[in-house]
């Protein structure tokens, strides 16, 4: 329950006291029915007048009123109460929390708290408990399945793996653009970069930097989904924003809490292997990595997956200490988490120390500040789509024990020189990283008068990431050994100033005006030192190499913004909001660097006008609409032509022209969003439905357009292209039972986003996103959708009048055929899901609380890279059928190409190694090359907790304690064959969605936890 000092806009004014006869002084204490604690900041108003006072930090108020008058006690999140004054000068009031918060506040831009009812756009708030209950150490993962319109894709089960969050689809055609929302902590943006070692890197599943935040520090998270919501944050929030409010101390006795959890993690799902045929080729034992050998008779078999993956563990400990008095509060936390991954030799750890405080210097001046130091990092093996730990694991044969991988002299023992042993590789090709980060902010609020407030806040996000990437001498990827040391330093300074005026006009009109200025400075440096050709094997030091290359990738940008925001409301029922912001970005050419964008939104609570507040069936209905534009700048140094120096060759150093060139007249990108929605409460707030429809047009995109090499360049950065995304979102919550002993809540969400490419850059017919193989490509083109897959499906009968319609067409050789020529690509699917949803419930009985959350994904095709490997190496269970003549089910054409006559196929074809591994057309068809539908239902989270009865603790210093068992990703149902199809091969920072199977696979985790407050 919230007990923040919330100032209701229309309640803060004191007009001249009315001269009322027979006034008496009434005073008393307002407490909460929840825990009996006093509630500060409750507004106490004389009904029908404008006289308002507020309770102090001890919940005490005093007011002068006539005995005939009625006092209204109201507080955000509580049911308002009306109490006649009568003759008793002492009026103590107990407020009950409203089960469905009609007066709920949400934190929107710049840390401003607004009544949810006033918002003309969609937001969704996730409470602290819903985050910490998941025990996810990466807060982005804690949102899985909970937020509608938000898609979260983790990079898999590597220790500390990053996660990608995307709100309402891809807005940018740029394959390397940041399509993720801005993360804002206590009003100050922070970095959520993954700092991949290269664009679309498949080598490591780097952590996304928002994961540094200790989830136990979070009070609430609000997701601002569309541009209307995030417009005040400017261009960096063009993809929406995740607003995090951290906990602060409360006045009163110091309070301590301690939480500890320990987990058991294992790989959710593994591809099936065959154990009938052993190592060899073409049915014979020969030296080969393949499993196309003779039948295994009497030999032991080994499942490489089962032997390789182990049980991982995460241990998290978190301690908080907070308190304060009327003028100052403090909050401190220390947390530590360590993780040992499911892959040998992998780990991750995070330590966070936070101090936050507020100081009321006078009635008018209030300071707040916080500092958060984080150390995080770990060690993970190298993975990849064509080499790496998982790649070697999935090719490993079934008759060789992969655990037997060392020769007596310590060198690698492998059954074939074309493969590295996965255990050996894991121990000898890895990345270590170590992040030191400081997040700090300092703010001051000055209440000049009762209607005017000035607010200034400055924040710092500084981190260094020291990485060391090591490849041992003698590995297939590094026969001579190599090592890279990377020093990343990120420095972001934000300064926000705003003045906020609020005024009531007459009884019903209210206006709030905000005017502000912001400055953002980002300076990123990345110094990379690569050493090649180890002098001495097995020495992990950058000094140990023959040839060095040093590169630095600096990036500096400044953004200046000026913004205004006006809200006018009538009768607390109709709200109109207009905003405007102008940004100046250093990354654009001088003539285009200034750009303005407006927004407007309207919300109307029609049930209030209709007087339906007390209607037992339908008591609250709000309609909202908004339109907003957001501009987006470029990355630093995109404009114009540069040359680069090359590594010295025999004493001569070369200069080459860069293959990327940027337009000198680059303009800012624009995203225009139109949104309609509503919120409806039924059965006295027992059931709440929030529905939203949004159309987002992104135009003038800054795209690195791939142009013909024959132009002299690879990439031209220019404005081009238009994408439209349409999103439909529903959110349903139901408080079915809410008795003292038994509570039952249900919540469900469903969302769908459909993107469409409306125009492409001139002269460019298509842009390919990271084509992994020639077999399946992700291509965007006019009329297509982002994430469209292209390939060559088997030819089928496409004649609705034919009795064979839809059947495979079999060639003269007895094999299915694919359409020719191969220069034509065919649309075969889309990487984005048709819809996603979540369904959860929480029930509590006495001290027990049980909750579960299912998440659903319908559609979303993925390219499973391991499947091609399972086929070509013959280790996959799919290749069990072999060395047999098979008549493919389908038809053959006995007519001509133009006038086909189909009859059932009767030609038998040989299914053997050559068929799976070498047969070119067979490998091409998406039916065989790893292309699969990855719809799923998963039990995202299930949790059981028990609060120890208070009476057990009365004689101890412990205030409350609970025990919990939580499981994440416990159960997965999908038709997909392979690892858990969620984990993206290219990591959290990449837009190449849908390539799966080569990173460390996803895990399921079971946590045991203890929570103590004292």
């Amino acid at each position, binding site marked *: 329950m919230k007990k923040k000092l919330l100032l209701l806009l229309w309640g803060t004014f004191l007009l001249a006291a009315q001269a009322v006869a027979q006034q008496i002084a009434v005073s008393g204490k307002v407490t909460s029915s929840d825990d009996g604690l006093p509630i500060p900041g409750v507004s106490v108003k004389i009904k029908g007048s404008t006289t308002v006072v507020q309770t102090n930090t001890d919940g005490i108020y005093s007011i002068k009123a006539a005995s005939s008058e009625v006092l209204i006690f109201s507080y955000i999140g509580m049911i308002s109460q009306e109490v006649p004054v009568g003759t008793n000068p002492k009026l103590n009031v107990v407020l009950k929390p409203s089960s469905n918060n009609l007066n709920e506040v949400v934190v929107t831009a710049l840390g401003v708290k607004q009544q949810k009812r006033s918002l003309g756009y969609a937001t969704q708030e996730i409470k602290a408990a819903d985050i910490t209950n998941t025990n996810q150490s990466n807060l982005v993962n804690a949102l899985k399945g909970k937020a509608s319109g938000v898609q979260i894709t983790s990079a898999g089960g590597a220790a500390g793996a990053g996660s990608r969050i995307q709100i309402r689809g891809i807005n940018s055609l740029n394959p390397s653009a940041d399509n993720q929302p801005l993360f804002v902590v206590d009003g100050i943006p922070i970095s959520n970069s993954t700092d991949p070692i290269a664009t679309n890197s498949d080598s490591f599943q780097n952590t996304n930097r928002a994961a540094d935040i200790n989830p136990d520090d979070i009070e609430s998270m609000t997701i601002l989904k569309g541009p209307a919501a995030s417009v005040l944050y400017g261009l960096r929030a063009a993809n929406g924003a995740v607003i995090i409010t951290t906990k602060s101390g409360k006045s009163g006795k110091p309070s301590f809490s301690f939480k500890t959890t320990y987990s058991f993690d294992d790989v959710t799902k593994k591809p099936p292997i065959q154990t009938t045929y052993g190592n060899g*080729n*073409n049915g014979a034992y*020969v*030296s080969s990595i393949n499993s196309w050998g003779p039948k295994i008779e009497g030999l032991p078999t080994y499942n490489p997956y089962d032997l390789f993956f182990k049980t991982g563990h995460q241990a998290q400990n978190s301690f908080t200490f907070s308190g304060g008095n009327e003028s100052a509060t403090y909050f401190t936390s220390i947390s530590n988490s360590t993780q040992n991954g499911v892959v040998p030799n992998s780990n991750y750890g995070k330590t966070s120390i936070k101090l936050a405080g507020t100081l009321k210097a006078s009635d008018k001046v209030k300071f707040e500040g916080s500092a958060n130091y984080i150390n995080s990092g770990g060690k993970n093996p190298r993975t990849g789509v064509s080499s790496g730990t998982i790649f070697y694991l999935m090719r490993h044969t079934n008759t060789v024990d992969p655990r037997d991988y060392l020769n007596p002299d310590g060198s690698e023992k492998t059954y*074939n*020189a*074309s493969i590295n042993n996965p255990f050996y590789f894991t121990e000898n090709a890895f990345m270590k990283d170590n992040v030191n980060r400081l997040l700090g902010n300092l703010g001051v609020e000055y209440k000049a008068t009762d209607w005017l407030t*000035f607010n200034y806040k400055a924040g710092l996000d500084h981190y260094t990431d020291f990485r060391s990437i090591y490849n041992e001498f003698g590995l*297939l990827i590094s*026969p001579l050994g190599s090592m890279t040391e990377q020093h990343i330093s990120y420095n972001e300074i934000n300064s926000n*100033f705003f003045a906020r005026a609020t005024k009531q006009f007459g009884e019903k009109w209210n206006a709030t005006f905000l005017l502000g*200025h912001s*400055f953002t400075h980002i300076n990123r440096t990345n110094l990379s030192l690569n050493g090649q*050709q180890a002098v001495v094997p097995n020495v992990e030091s950058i000094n140990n190499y023959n040839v060095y290359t040093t*590169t*630095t990738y600096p990036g*500096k*940008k400044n953004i*200046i913004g000026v913004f205004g925001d006006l809200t006018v409301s009538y009768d607390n029922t109709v709200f109109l909001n207009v905003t405007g912001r102008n940004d*100046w*970005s*250093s*990354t*654009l050419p*001088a003539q285009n*660097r200034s750009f303005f964008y407006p927004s407007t939104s309207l919300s109307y609570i029609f049930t209030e006008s209709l007087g339906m507040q007390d209607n037992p069936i339908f008591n609250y209905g709000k309609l909202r609409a908004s339109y907003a534009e957001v501009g987006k700048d470029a990355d*630093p*140094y995109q*404009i114009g*032509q*540069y*040359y*680069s*120096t*090359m590594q010295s*060759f*025999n004493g*001569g150093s*070369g*200069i*080459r*022209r860069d*293959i990327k*060139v940027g337009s000198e007249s680059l303009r800012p990108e624009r995203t225009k969003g139109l949104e309609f929605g509503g919120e409806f409460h039924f059965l006295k707030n027992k059931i709440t439905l929030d529905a939203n429809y949004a159309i987002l047009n992104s135009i003038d995109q800054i795209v690195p357009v*791939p*142009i*013909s*090499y024959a*132009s*002299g360049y690879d990439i031209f950065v*220019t404005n081009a292209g238009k994408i439209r995304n349409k999103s439909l979102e529903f959110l349903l919550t139901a408080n079915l039972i809410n008795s003292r002993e038994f509570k039952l809540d249900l919540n469900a969400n469903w969302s769908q986003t459909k993107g469409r490419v409306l125009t492409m850059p001139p*002269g*460019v*017919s*298509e842009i390919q996103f990271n084509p992994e193989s*020639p077999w399946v490509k992700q291509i965007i083109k006019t009329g297509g959708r982002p994430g469209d897959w292209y390939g060559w499906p088997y030819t089928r009968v496409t004649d609705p009048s034919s009795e064979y319609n839809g059947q495979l067409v079999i060639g003269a050789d007895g094999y299915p055929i694919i359409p020719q*020529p*191969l*220069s034509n690509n065919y649309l075969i699917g889309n990487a984005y899901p048709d819809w996603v949803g979540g369904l959860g419930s929480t029930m509590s009985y006495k001290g027990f609380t049980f909750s579960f959350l299912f998440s659903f994904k319908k559609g979303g095709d993925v390219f499973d890279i391991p499947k091609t490997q399972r086929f070509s190496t013959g280790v996959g269970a799919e290749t069990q059928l072999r060395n047999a003549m098979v008549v493919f089910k389908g038809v053959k054409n006995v007519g001509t190409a133009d006038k086909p006559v189909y009859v059932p196929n009767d030609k038998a074809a040989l299914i053997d190694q050559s068929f799976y591994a*070498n047969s070119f057309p067979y490998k091409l068809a998406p039916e065989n090359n790893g292309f699969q539908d990855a719809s799923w239902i998963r039990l995202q989270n299930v949790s059981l907790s028990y609060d120890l009865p208070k009476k057990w603790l009365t004689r101890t210093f412990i205030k409350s304690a609970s025990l919990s068992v939580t499981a994440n990703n416990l159960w997965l149902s999908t038709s997909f064959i392979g690892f858990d199809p969620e984990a993206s091969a290219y990591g959290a920072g990449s837009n190449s969605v849908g390539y799966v199977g080569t990173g460390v696979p996803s895990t399921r985790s079971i946590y045991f936890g203890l929570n103590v407050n004292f």
Partner: protein
Amino acid sequence: MKNLKIKVFGLVLLGATLFGSCKKALDINNDPSRLTPDQVNLAGQLAATIQFTSSSFFNAGQYGNSYPQYLAGFNTYEANIDSYNPYGFDNIWESAYRDALPNLKDMISRAETLGAPQYSGIGKVLFALTLMQSTDIWGDLPYSDAFKGPSVPSPKYDAQQDIYNTALKQLLDGAIADLAKPVPAAASLKVGASTDLIFGGVIANWQKVAYGARARYYLHLSKKDPSNMAKALADAGAAIDDQKGAIDLQLKYTQDRPSPWYTNLGQPAITAKQGRPSYFLVNLMNGTGYFNGVIDPRMPKIFDNNGAATYVGRPVGALSTEQGANLANADVTDKTFYGARTSAVPILTYAEIQFIRAEALIGTDKPSAYTAYINGIKGNMQKLGVADADILTYTTNPVVTKGGNITLTDIMLQKYIALFLQMETWTDMRRYQYDVNIYPGLKAPFKDLLGPGVYVQRGKYPDNEPGRNPNVPQVANQAVKLWLFN
């Protein structure tokens, strides 16, 4: 209220100061880690373009070698590109059209602006050699519309006929003319020793290369017009003339920057090699092929058979279980001439010049043709480090000398051996349309995806290009002949 006014004034002042410093805060968009065009110098561009040109010749050989049957696919490449599995040659396209040619063009125009004719001359000859190799692979290519930057993002394709008759002619004539111009006095305009990675600034050698390149050019056109043979002969006379190969056009790699052949073929374990010397090539040298009974002393220099008594090649386009592929024992390893860590990627050699002479003279002046033929063999053997006694034995063996009465077959087969791993050979073979009289013993791949007995005529356009350029010519398949060979 007065207090408030002061504060508002203060804020306005603060705001004004901030806006004043705006411009300064926003003018920070120059990348300090890279060079602007005015910071570029010719010497650095020369070092870069030489490396790019060398890479593009290596890349052509790396996968293209299956076509002239120098190498047969092995391991994951068995019966793959050597079976004419359509392969987009993206790495050749990338190294030529993205790296070598635009940088050469940039260097040429900078040199012409600054008045540094030797730089532009070297640029033109490297440009011509790269473009000629490219058009020999693909045929029609962007040229007249190409390298104009983003204003022409999808250049049109010029007919091969125009590339040969206009573009290459202008480039080669221009190179010879530029190299002959007086050397400027300014040091920054003179080709320096350190960044001319091939000849250390000796322009006379570049001139010989330019004549040699034009000789190759005229030879290619000799089928279109036999009078070009005489022009080829004339240019060959002014071309690379050091029999030991000391002034061959080739980039010699170093211990620190290993040869791409080393990384690609020499260094990997046998179970990871992409290709093995073919049956056809090894048979020409082990005494079982056309030069029957002659053991070629170059075999131990360019192949490694792990000490076996004989050398056996691998059949082309076959799986390991087919056609005796499992019997092969010859490999390119780091112990061989081309697979060594510090080996060179040859682009134009003395031996080739001699075989151009021999081919040009065989119809008119057989004794001179014979002299060139023997010089070519000797040049290649000396370069590979064959002992003088072995050279003498080989070049006096009647099976090789034919008593001076050699034929075109002898010339082309000796050229075939001498140009091991070079794509120029594929152009030779297509000039003679894989004629079994010229290349006796040559067989189409065992598994031939173009159809039984059909030879490959052209490279498939790169997979990278169609999405970026709608002008890519549509070609039915790789059996369609190029204009040059029609």
